[in-house]
Structure formats: structure tokens, C-alpha cells
């Protein structure tokens, strides 16, 4: 295998030759130059670099196509007429003339030998030429350091470095590469015969007679006998280029290499004698993303076996780091921590600050999600607690100019602050500082995580529209330049918001819009399926569809901590509690809440989760008919939510409090509380909470109506209760919550009866029955 030269490169040289001869007409100059530039350099002249997912791999495909077949040239040159004395000749004809002009191995040699004539002369050469009285070359000459000049010079150099048999190989490959054009060329060139690919054979034919064929077969091997096994000459240079591109794509977007491209690339690799070690890395990434644990391990080790000592640098720490990430991805968290710690020590030994900082960052984030595993570590190490680690990382990153790390450390601090319920403005400050770095350094890849943190903040503050907007902004502007994971997460959030508002179908549509190649990565598709399942579960819980709920829960609960992030796990758990409560399995629900509560307390987790658990507990107590026992719990939840500015949870807590007050008969107070809270709650998109508040309000009004002595007042309260019930019913039906809808209808009927409007009472009763029937039919 040659290092650099391939038949396709000869084609490019011929094209450059054609261009310098001035054979390219004006209208073709831009396409031709664009073609050359996109093959020689990494750029495109005509349009802005498109990074749409569909085009991401187009470049790789393009370069493979160029290596394998000559058709690209035909497509480019076919439409243009050449600047030529003979009219009607196409640029493609001229190009073919050049290629078929290389009609023997010696002609190939000459072709390369005269390449330097395309270059501009150096000062010395010019002086010598003027001394000798020669004319300086005119027309288009290539500057020595221009991209074309560099390419021409490199090709010339590489050719002169080839040993003879490689030259012969190149020649054979070139003959084969050119052969598809033989038919066309024969039409244009009647002298063309079957042996025209080598002029020596043509001239020798009259001398050798029928033995010519045999000689040709001896020289050209099986290529002539037609048992074409589609091998083509690939240079190490091409392979490396393609590999680097793949690695870059994988790193930047977290994609897997598309199937077709992979197949093409594999066939190229088969032709090349040497397989660069980087290809093992690509295989490793692919296996990793596809969830093939043993294979990815195998390839990782293979890759680092080949590169451990490359270029006088030790790569051991990187090998370890990759290993750790792999292990954690496959749920071997303990091993991952051990490996990462070794990475840290190795990196420290080798003074590889970059790796060290990265590893520490990773460890920190890992510790956030798996506190148990790193707890003992934190107690007896210099790292200290999360905050200190982050401060350390931030300082280090600033020192060594690792902007990505710096900004991510800042965001980590923001998250940490939010999780422990500290000042919102401090978190905001961190976000802003991080975003400043991102903008200053144009860290497009970091945009996803930055916006994710911002979304979280808005969500916590209950500003649903801001959070939705942020997600939209990300999806519209940054999705193409960031990792697919971020895109998926943003979409999930958006879908979550929609589901919160009861627009399940739209939420599912959002999910469906994500499809294709990126979903081939196992992590991503897992996440996608889980999130979709969660939303389905929410809908089915509301719809009271027990079978579906059981089915989904059985699946979702299987996903253990190995393959899920803790946030998602908590969501699944809380939905489980909800389902249990609704079904009246209070003991099981209580047990689960207790278990989760102890876990959370031990792990010092996000304050939001704790509040949620407290609220679930209060709800449970309410359901078993002893709401007053949940008073302290609710108060604590409210206090915590207030302090952490977790507004949606605060409103929920206030609702629970109102409920307790109602149970204690303090209806006026309850109503006042709810009325104060309701407008703020309406700002969020938690429709179910709003509906609950309305129903609580209705209860409070009803209570007050019962207490009211005067009938006018009573009427007024009943009217208010009716309105509240209407609103509650409306909101409950938005989230399709059947049970609550029925409850509202029943209450409505009661109110009507009390108001003496029997007809409407009947009406509500009929609607109630109808709804029940519908649900029964739907749930089978």
C-alpha cells in the first residue's frame, strides 16, 4: 500500500494539469476549483459548511467514492465544454485524453517527473533560466506554498520515494481505475483497442502475436482475467484521513458510523495492507455505542496496545480514562471508580494536567450521581467535598486554559447550589459566567449543557414558558453542533412540559421526530425508550388504565441504577408511588416512600426530591383519611421549597396545607391560602397541580357554604364552589385524569342538587356515568 498516492490522486493531478493549461472554461472554473479544494483541503467553496445531520457523513462518503471510482470526475467535467481548438469537445474528453495519455508505466513516471513544471520557479531557478536565455513559464503557475502547489510537490516527492514494485502497483491500480471509461474513450477514439491500456502491449502485439495476452496476464496478474475482486489501491493517507474524520464525528456528535459508510470503509480497509491503529479506536467507539461490552473492551485494549508508546508519549492514562468511562457506561460503577482513580494517579505521575483535570471533573460528576461509591473516598482524600473539588477544578482549568472544563465546572457549581437549595442568584451568576466563557471561546459543544442547566433553573423557579423557550432555542440553533445526547435531553424536557399540560400526542410526536442513525447508539436509544415509557406511564396513570400501568411499571422498574441516571430513577419511583396510592395499596406505597426517604437522607441528594417525597407522604396520609397527621410534613415541605425557591413544589405544598386546614375545618383560611397561591401556580404548566388547587378551593368554598348561616351567602359560596369545580374539571380533563374528573362531576352534581337545580344535577350524574362507561370501554 502506498503511503499517499492513489489512482484518484493521479486524477486530481491531471485535473490540476488541465486547469493550469487553461483548458477549463470560465463557467467551469468555480466547480473545478471547488472540487479540487474539497478533496485536497477540508473545505468547500460554494456553500457554508452544512452540519445538518444528514450531511455529516457526506464528506466521508465523498472521499470514499473518489477513491473507489472515477465517476466523480465524470460528473464534474461532463457538463462543460473544453477551451480547445476542436469544437464540441468536453472537458471530460480532455481529462480522459490526459489519463489515457499515460499509456505505460514509463509514461506514468514521466507524468510525475514533469509535475514540478506546474510550479512557480524559485528565485534561483529563475536566475538560472534567464542566464541560459530560457523563457520563463507563462500562464497559470502554482505557487509553491499554495494548496495545489503543496499537493503537487507532495505527490512528486511521494512518487520519487516509491520503490519500484509500489510504482508498479500504483500503475496497475491506475489502469484499473481508468478502465470504466474505456468504452466512452473508444467511441471518441477509434484506434483504441483492447490492449490500449498499455502501449507497450499494443506495439508488442505484432511481434508477440497471440502470446501478448499471456504476457499481459503475467504482468498485470489476475486483474485482466476478469476475476475482479473489487480491490482498489488505498493509501495510508486516505485511510488515516477517513479515520480521523470518523473519530471527530463520533466525539463531536456521539453518533455511530452509519451502516453503509461502515461497510464501505471496511472494504477499503480490507484492500489496504496496513491497518492503522486508529481504526481499532473507531471500532471501539462503535462497539461501545452499540452496547457490545465484550467487543468494546477487546478493541479498546487492542487500540492501546498499539498506541501505548506512540510518539514518545505515554497514553496509559487515556487508556484508563476510556476504560473507566466504558465501565461506567455499562454499569460497572465500582470498577469505573477504581479505574478513574488510577487514571488520576497515573496522570499525576506523568504530569498530564489535561487528563488529570478531565478525570477529576468526571469523578466529581460521577460522585454527584453515585454518592455511595465515592463517599469513603471523599472522607479520606484531599479532594474534599463537592464544592471544594469544583473550586479546585475551576482554578486549575483557568490556569491551564481548559475552557471546556472551566465552564463545565461553573455549571457544576450552579447545579450543586440548586440541588442543595441555595441562593438562586448565585446559581444564576455561575450560569452567566459559564455562558460568558462559552461565548468568548465559541465552545459550541458546551451550549447544550449550559442551556440544560438554564432549563433546570427555570423549571425550578416554575417559569415553564422560559424553560420551554430555552429548549426550543437549543433545538433550533445549537442542536446540529452538539452531541446528540443534549438534543435528546432537550427534546425529553420539552415533551415533559407538553405531557404536563396533557398534550400527550404532541409529546410523542416530539419523540418520533428523533429517529435515524443517532438512535443506533445504545445509551441514547435506552434513554429515548425510557423517557417515552415514563410519559406513557404518566398518561396511563391519569387515565386509570391499570393493565398498561402495570405493564409499563414492570418494565421501567427493571432498569436499575446500572443503566439509568438517578433523576430518572426517582421519577419512575415517584410514579410508582403514585400508582400504588391511587390503587389503594397504601402499605406498599408507604414502605416505598420510607425506603426512598432513608436513601435520600443518606445520600444528601437534591432537595427537590426530598420535598417531593414529603409531599407524596402527605398525600398518602390524606388518602388514608388522616390528612391532619401530615401537617408537620407539609409544613416542612413548604419551608424547604420556599427556601430553595422551588416554586412549583411550594404551590403544591401550600395546596396540601390547605387540604389539611380544610380537614381541620378552617375553610376560610384554606380558601385564602389557595386563592393567594392559585394565580402564581397558573404560571407553571403543572396542570394537575392547578386542577388539584381548584378542587381544594371548591372544597373550601363548600365548607364555607356549609358554615354560612345566611342563604344568600350560601348561594354565593355554592356558586363560587361551582365555578371552582368547573375549572378543576376543565384542568383535570386536560391531563385526562379520569378519577378526578369523575370526582369533580360527582361534586358538581352535589352542588347542583344543593342549589336546587335538579335537572343539571341529573345532567352531571349522566355525564359521570357516561365517563365511567367510556373509561371502562377504553381500558377494556
Amino acid at each position, binding site marked *: 500500500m502506498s503511503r499517499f498516492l492513489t489512482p484518484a490522486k493521479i486524477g486530481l493531478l491531471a485535473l490540476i494539469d488541465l486547469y493550469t493549461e487553461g483548458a477549463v472554461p470560465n463557467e467551469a472554473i468555480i466547480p473545478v476549483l471547488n472540487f479540487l479544494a474539497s478533496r485536497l483541503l477540508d473545505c468547500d467553496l460554494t456553500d457554508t459548511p452544512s452540519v445538518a445531520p444528514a450531511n455529516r457523513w457526506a464528506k466521508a462518503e465523498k472521499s470514499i467514492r473518489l477513491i473507489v471510482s472515477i465517476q466523480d470526475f465524470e460528473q464534474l467535467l461532463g457538463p462543460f465544454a473544453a477551451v480547445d481548438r476542436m469544437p464540441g469537445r468536453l472537458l471530460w474528453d480532455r481529462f480522459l485524453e490526459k489519463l489515457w495519455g499515460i499509456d*505505460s*508505466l514509463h509514461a506514468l*513516471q514521466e507524468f510525475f517527473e514533469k509535475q514540478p513544471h506546474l510550479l512557480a520557479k524559485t528565485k534561483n531557478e529563475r536566475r538560472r533560466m534567464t542566464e541560459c536565455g530560457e523563457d520563463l513559464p507563462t500562464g497559470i503557475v502554482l505557487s509553491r506554498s499554495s494548496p495545489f502547489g503543496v499537493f503537487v510537490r507532495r505527490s512528486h516527492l511521494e512518487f520519487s520515494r516509491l520503490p*519500484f514494485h509500489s510504482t508498479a502497483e500504483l500503475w496497475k491500480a491506475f489502469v484499473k481505475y481508468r478502465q470504466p471509461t474505456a468504452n466512452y474513450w473508444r467511441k471518441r477514439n477509434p484506434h483504441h483497442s483492447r490492449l490500449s491500456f498499455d502501449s507497450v502491449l499494443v506495439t*508488442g502485439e505484432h*511481434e508477440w502475436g497471440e*502470446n501478448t495476452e499471456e*504476457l499481459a496476464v503475467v*504482468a498485470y*496478474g489476475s486483474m485482466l482475467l476478469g476475476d475482479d475482486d473489487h480491490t482498489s489501491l488505498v493509501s495510508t493517507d486516505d485511510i488515516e484521513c477517513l479515520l480521523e474524520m470518523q473519530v471527530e464525528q463520533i466525539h463531536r456528535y456521539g453518533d455511530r458510523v452509519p451502516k453503509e459508510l461502515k461497510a464501505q470503509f471496511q472494504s477499503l480497509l480490507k484492500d489496504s495492507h496496513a491497518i492503522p491503529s486508529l481504526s481499532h479506536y473507531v471500532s471501539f467507539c462503535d462497539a461501545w455505542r452499540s452496547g457490545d461490552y465484550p467487543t468494546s473492551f477487546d478493541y479498546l485494549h487492542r487500540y492501546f496496545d498499539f498506541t501505548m508508546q506512540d510518539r514518545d508519549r505515554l497514553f496509559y492514562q487515556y487508556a484508563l480514562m476510556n476504560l473507566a468511562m466504558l465501565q461506567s457506561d455499562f454499569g460497572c460503577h465500582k470498577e469505573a471508580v477504581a479505574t478513574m482513580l488510577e487514571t488520576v494517579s497515573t496522570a499525576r505521575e506523568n504530569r498530564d494536567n489535561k487528563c488529570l483535570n478531565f478525570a477529576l471533573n468526571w469523578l466529581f460528576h460521577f460522585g454527584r450521581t453515585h454518592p455511595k461509591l465515592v463517599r469513603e473516598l471523599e472522607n479520606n482524600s484531599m479532594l474534599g467535598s463537592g464544592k471544594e473539588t469544583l473550586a479546585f477544578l475551576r482554578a486549575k482549568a483557568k490556569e491551564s486554559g481548559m475552557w471546556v472544563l472551566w465552564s463545565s465546572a461553573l455549571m457544576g457549581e450552579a447545579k450543586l447550589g440548586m440541588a442543595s437549595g441555595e441562593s438562586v442568584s448565585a446559581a444564576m451568576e455561575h450560569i452567566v459566567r459559564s455562558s460568558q466563557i462559552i461565548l468568548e471561546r465559541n465552545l459550541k459543544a458546551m451550549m447544550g449543557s449550559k442551556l440544560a442547566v438554564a432549563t433546570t433553573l427555570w423549571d425550578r423557579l416554575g417559569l415553564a414558558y422560559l424553560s420551554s423557550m430555552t429548549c426550543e432555542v437549543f433545538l433550533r440553533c445549537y442542536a446540529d453542533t452538539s452531541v446528540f445526547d443534549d438534543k435528546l435531553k432537550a427534546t425529553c424536557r420539552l415533551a415533559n412540559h407538553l405531557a404536563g399540560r396533557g398534550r400527550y400526542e404532541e409529546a410523542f410526536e416530539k419523540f418520533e421526530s428523533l429517529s435515524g442513525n443517532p438512535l443506533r447508539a445504545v445509551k441514547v436509544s435506552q434513554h429515548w425508550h425510557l423517557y417515552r415509557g415514563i410519559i406513557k406511564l404518566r398518561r396511563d396513570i391519569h387515565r386509570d388504565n391499570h393493565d398498561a400501568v402495570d405493564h409499563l411499571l414492570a418494565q421501567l422498574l427493571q432498569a436499575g441504577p446500572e443503566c439509568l441516571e438517578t433523576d430518572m430513577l426517582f421519577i419512575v419511583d415517584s410514579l410508582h408511588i403514585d400508582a400504588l396510592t391511587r390503587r389503594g395499596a397504601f402499605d406498599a406505597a408507604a414502605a416505598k416512600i420510607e425506603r426512598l426517604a432513608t436513601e435520600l437522607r443518606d445520600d444528601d441528594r437534591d432537595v427537590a426530591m426530598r420535598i417531593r417525597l414529603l409531599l407524596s407522604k402527605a398525600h398518602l396520609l390524606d388518602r388514608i383519611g388522616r390528612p391532619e397527621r401530615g401537617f408537620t410534613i407539609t409544613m416542612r415541605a413548604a419551608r424547604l421549597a420556599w427556601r430553595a425557591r422551588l416554586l412549583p413544589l411550594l404551590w403544591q405544598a401550600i395546596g396540601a396545607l390547605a387540604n389539611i386546614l380544610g380537614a381541620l375545618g378552617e375553610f376560610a383560611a384554606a380558601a385564602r391560602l389557595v386563592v393567594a397561591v392559585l394565580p402564581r401556580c397558573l404560571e407553571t404548566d403543572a396542570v394537575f397541580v392547578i386542577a388539584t388547587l381548584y378542587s381544594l378551593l371548591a372544597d373550601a368554598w363548600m365548607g364555607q357554604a356549609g358554615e354560612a348561616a345566611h342563604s344568600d351567602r350560601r348561594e354565593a359560596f355554592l356558586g363560587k364552589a361551582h365555578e371552582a369545580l368547573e375549572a378543576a374539571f376543565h384542568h383535570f380533563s386536560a391531563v385526562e385524569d379520569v378519577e378526578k374528573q369523575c370526582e369533580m362531576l360527582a361534586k358538581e352534581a352535589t352542588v347542583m342538587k344543593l342549589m336546587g337545580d335538579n335537572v343539571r344535577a341529573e345532567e352531571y350524574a349522566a355525564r359521570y356515568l357516561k365517563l365511567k362507561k367510556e373509561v371502562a370501554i377504553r381500558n377494556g
Partner: protein
Amino acid sequence: MGLTAKDSFHLKEALQIAVVKCSERCLYQAAKWAAELLDALPERSVDEFKGQPPTATYVHPAFFPSADPNEAALEARELNRYLLAKSFFDCKEFDRCAAVFLPDSLLSGLITAKFNEAADPRRKGKAAAVGPSAQEQPLPEMSQKSLFLALYAKVMSGEKQKDEDSEMIMGPQDLGSVVNKQLLTVSRFLERWFADRKKESDPSPSQGFLEYLYGMVLVKEKNDSDALNFLMQSVHLFPWNWGCWLEITNLISRVEQLNKIAPHMPQNIMSFIFHANTAVNLYQQGQDLAASLNDLLGIFPTSSFLLTCKALLNYHAKDLMAAEQDFSQLLALHPHRLDSLDHYSNILYVLNLRPKLAFLAHLCSSIDKFRPESCVVIGNYYSLLSLHEKAVQYFRRALTLDRSCLSAWTLMGHEYVELKNTHAAIESYRRAVDVNRRDYRAWYGLGQTYEVLEMHAYALWYYKKAAGLRPWDGKMWQAVGSCLQKMGRDRDGIKALKRALLADSYYDSTASSFGSTGPIDRMTQMDPEVLLQIASMYDRLDDEDEAKAYMELCMAQEDGGAAGAEGAAGLGDSVAIHNDSPGGGPSDGEGEGADRAGVHEGTGVTVATSKARMWLAKYAMRAEDYHTAHRLGMELCQDGVEVEEAKALIREARSRLELANMLDR
């Protein structure tokens, strides 16, 4: 030379036997050669074999046990061991193969015994050495076949050892002085074996192979006359061993020697082939040789070996086009054959057929890129492209593959000359000469290199060597002459150069007698350079008349017309050294052949002729022949050579003429 059906059948059978016998003894190249020849015999129709019973019981004579009952019994007894040894040999485990029949202890005993005797001053000479000494162990009794195999394996192991011990080609330690350490053992053994045989009253008839082996060993020990003796014995006993014939060919360095031994050769077809081949190798030419080759080709019409000989014959006769065609035919007939394609590449090089040479190189490298021939072809191609470093690289590779590859050494020398690395060039030429002292190209190259270094005395010596090898090559004599001229020995120089002129004209006549492609009668054509050189030497010797004659002759070469012919005739008279028997046609492998071939009639104006003209003009001025001077000056001006000087000359001539006119008036 037609063959009857019976002759043909016997020939076929003999060759078949030869192939089997040579293969049995692991003489692969000889077996290959015989098989190739066998293949070249035209197939006769089946009914001609009616005399032979093609029954199931028929055993081909090649597979008969040995004719000698004694040997047959021995062979039968040791068949197992023989098969073992043969397979070891085939696997290139030479020492192991030898040890099957001849344990090391036996061989070392042989040597130490010898040393003791050599140390003993009272015993001297060969007779004493083979005398019945007390400590001498008897030689083991075994069949000749096994003995040959064992000893041959020993020699091969020694060769292998030698190759391994040798340093990198042209490396600091590579002095070419590594020797085959097993030769001594083998030669001692064989010496005793032959002595023992002589003592035996009724020795079983020899098969000839051991003689061949002994001859080979003696050649390696540079004991040429004894070697020739044994080799001759061998070919008498078994004429079908081509390896043996080749060894004899290598021993013969002059055609006289060939003629001397010819009567002592067995009279059969092999000797005929040998004679032709040797003659070709000695750069002989002539009708007889061509005829005999053609006769042989009549018997073996497609024999690649004979075709190669024919092509080489044409090549040596400087009939490059014919040689090229011959080789081309050969290539078409045997596309996978690499042997002697290096010669073909030389021819293509001289003819400057670049695409074809590239194709040939491609072909060779596709067949086997690790054959010395392939490497030489590729090296030649790169040399033609003036990529001398690469060429050297490939020649070195050829030499690494086979150190005795003569042409690679010489060609590498040429490349080093091009690279201006004179020391390396001298070394490679020297090594070439060491391999084969008949290689005049290497001698000539050595001379050239020393000339570049301006060590003329040395150069002269080497040129003389080359000229001695090629007495009828003008180029050699020209080199000698120029060298002498530079050393200031003008008289000798003139002699040498005249001889060069003669040689050239002789060669031209012989070439045209071959009458192939271009019948160029260049009898009238002489190298103006040489003529100018002669003239200037005469000038320095103050022999103005001779100088003038040669200057005119030189100038006459411009149009190569009648004047030249006259001059040549005159020259033929003046130099009477035409009494040597016609030697070989000159062939200086690479170089000028091509550009000279283009010259048909008249050289046109060259630097040499212009110089001659200038000299003549000045001479005319001195001789006060102003008209001539004026004319010559005008001609010089027309040719545009040294115009300034010529103009000055014209002015002066004119003024003198005017002066003369005025005086006349």
C-alpha cells in the same frame, strides 16, 4: 542437423534420465536446464514409438537401479537413509543432510590427520599424504550417489555459512574475503576417495558426479588446471550435467583455450551446445557460430537457452535491434522466465526503449521481485531515468541476493561513477573483476574512474587490460590513446589511436557482414574526435604534415564523403597492424551505441571538426595561403563556432590578401 526418429527418441530418453539423475543429487539448476531442453524437443507423433513396448510393465530407464550391481546393492541398502538425506537437503538443512552419511567426527578426523601430516616435515607432497598412515581411518563404504549428496550438502552448507558471514554489500567490513570453510574438508575427502579408487584393482565405474564435485571444489580453491581435468573427466563419464559444462565454460578465458580443449571433449550434442555457449560467452562471433546455433535451434526449436544464446550473439555483434527482437520473442514464448532478462534490459537501455524497459521491469517485479535478474532490470530502468541512487539501491539488492551477480557489480560501478563516488565505483569494479576476470567493462570502468581522478598511469594499466581482452574494440584503444596523450607519450598515443580507428572500421565491416537490420557501411566513417586527437598529437610532435593530413581527414568527416574514404584507405596503408586474427566484435554494454547509431553519413559540424578547421585556417595563415585561410574562416563564421576568432582571422587574411594584391600590382 536433422535427427532421425530413433535419435530423437534416444536424445529424449537421455535427457529424461539426466533430469532424474540430477534431481536425485539435488543439482536443481542442471535438472531444470535439462528439463527445459527436453521440453524444447518437438513432440513426435505417437506411432513413431512403435518400437517400444508401452506396456504396464514398462519401466523408464531413468528409474532403473544403477547399472553397476555393486552400486545397486549399496543404493538398495541405504535407500532409507538416502531418502532422509534428500528430504533434509530439500528443506535446506544441509549440515543435517551431510551428517546422515558422514558424521562430523569422521570429517574432522580427516582434517586433523591431514594437519599432523602437514606438520611433519619429513613427509611432503601429495603422494606422501595419501600414503597409508597408521592413524588413518578407512573411508565409509557407501554408494556414489549418497556420497555425492552428502559432500554436496557439505559444500552448500559452507556456502550458506559464507553468505551469512558476509557483511552488508559494500559495507565497511565487506572485503569479499569470506571463504567457504567446508571446502577443505570436502576436498580432502575427495582426494582420498580418488586415491583409494586408484589403488583398488577393480573399482566400480564412476558415475561422474563426484568428479564434478571435486572439480567444483577445486575451482573454488582456484586450482584451475586440476579442476579442468576433473571436470573433463566428469563430462566424459556423464555428459548430461549442464552444471559441469558451465564450470568448464567459466574456466576458459580465451578462445584459444577453447579451441585447444575442444578435441578432448566427448563428441556429442552436449559438447556442441557447450561449444556454442562458451563461444558466445567469450564474445565470439561469426558465421560458423551463428550457423551452429541455428543447427541446434533446428533440433530444439523453442529452447529458451539456445534462443538466449542467439540473442546474446547478436548483442555482442552490436546488432542491437536483432538482439532486442530475439529477446522479445523469447519473452513471448516464456513469459514467466526471468533468466538472462538482465541482458535484455541492457539492450533496451542502450536502445533507449524506455516504455518497454519499464514494462519489462514491471513484468519481472510481478513475477518475482526478489530475483537478482529482476533487481538488475529495475536498476537499469532507474539508471536510464537518471535516478542513480535508486538504481544503486536495486543493484545492491541484486548483490545481496546473489553475490556473484557479475553484471550488477559492474553496473553498480557505473552508477557510482555517475554519482561521483569514485571510491565506491572503484570498489565495485574491483569486485566485478574479482568475480570474473574476463569482464572488460569493469576493467574499462576502472580505467575511466582513475582517469577522472587524474591518475593516468593507473588508468592506463586498466585500459590496457581492457584492450587486451577486447583487442578489436576501438573504444578501448581510444581510451588507451587518450590516456597516453595525457601522459605526454604522444608517439604511443598515436599508435593506440590509429589502432582504434582500425578496430572501428573492422568492426563495421563485420557488423555489416552479419547483414541484419541496418546495413550501415561505416567503413568511410571515422570518429573526428580521434582524428583530431591524433592530429593534435602530431602537432605537438611538430610533425605538421601528418597533423595537417589528419586535420583534413577530421574535417572531411563532416560530410563523410569520398575524401574520408580516401583518407581511410591511406590510413590502412600507414598502419600495418592488421595481422591479428579477427577477434570478437566490440561491445561496450552501455553507452554510446545509441547516439552513434543515429549517425549515417557525415557527422555534420562538430566541435572537433571546427577545431580542426580552425587549426587548418591558422596553419594556412602560417603557410601564407591566405585564400584557404579566408575560406576556412568564412566557413567557421557560417557554422557559428568561435566567430570572434574566425572574424579576426578573416580580417587578417583579407588585409594580407589586399596587401599581396597591392604588391602584385
